[in-house]
């Protein structure tokens, strides 16, 4: 099985209200000194067969077309 991980994060210039909510909660739990939290998504994709440049390219394409919205998010694909 070929396993890939796709990390999707809001672009730095895009407001991340979920990250802000987590950032606001941390000091209340006693975690001091946290200055920034950004929240993203992680996808684990399994594809039949071995890892190949083709399957990697396919996951890249999935990330571009469905898993992320290029207007507001960046993504990174890696094999695991």
């Amino acid at each position: 099985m070929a396993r890939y991980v796709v990390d999707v994060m809001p672009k730095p210039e895009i407001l991340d209200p979920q990250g802000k909510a987590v950032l606001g909660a941390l000091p209340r739990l006693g975690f001091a000194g946290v200055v920034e939290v950004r929240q993203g998504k992680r996808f684990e994709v399994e594809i039949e067969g071995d890892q190949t440049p083709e399957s990697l390219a396919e996951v890249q394409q999935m990330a571009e077309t469905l898993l992320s919205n290029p207007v507001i998010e960046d993504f990174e694909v890696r094999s695991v």
Partner: protein
Amino acid sequence: MRVGVVTFPGSLDDVDARRAVTFGGNEAVALWHGDHDLQGVDAVVLPGGFSYGDYLRCGAISRFAPVMTEVIEAAGKGLPVLGICNGFQILCESHLLPGALIRNDHRKFACRDQRLRIENTSTPWTAAYEPGAEITVVLKNGEGGYVADEATLDRLEGEGRVVARYLGDNPNGSLRGIAGITNEGGNVVGLMPHPEHAVEALCGPGTDGLGFFTSLAAAAFA
């Protein structure tokens, strides 16, 4: 005109949208997300709701629903398409409209009567309004913050493609107070607030939303 209203799994406002279409003097045609068929309609409304549970991103999965193949193709040929709320999100995910909708900056669901200014009355959905008309319709969204890069925002403003703008407090953090936009052709309109909930005096804040549904008939006879 015959106006199709698409029902996706998780659509909430499809019935209200069909009712508003009828009140506007048009025939409402129910369309199903799973059909590759627009039933020959003259225009399409993508209604509000939480299609596909808003999983992944709002509108991200609906954008690939079978019926959207036909909607996207027909929109490219000039078919009038109105996306309301979740429908606006689907139009952005489909790249029929630029930009995206993100979670409200204040992180709370907003539900209220909302004043808007109609800034573009040349679309088939807004032709019934006077230029600069100020209207009050329902706003209800959790992810209604309109964002796009500065160049896109400047282009929208420069080309008069901001269809509606929020008046008073910005309800969701939308950049430049943008409530609705149109595409280059002017046939596709996305709007975050809900004109279909403001077509009867008995329910909702009045009948200011009716213009979105009478415009089509007005355009047909123009």
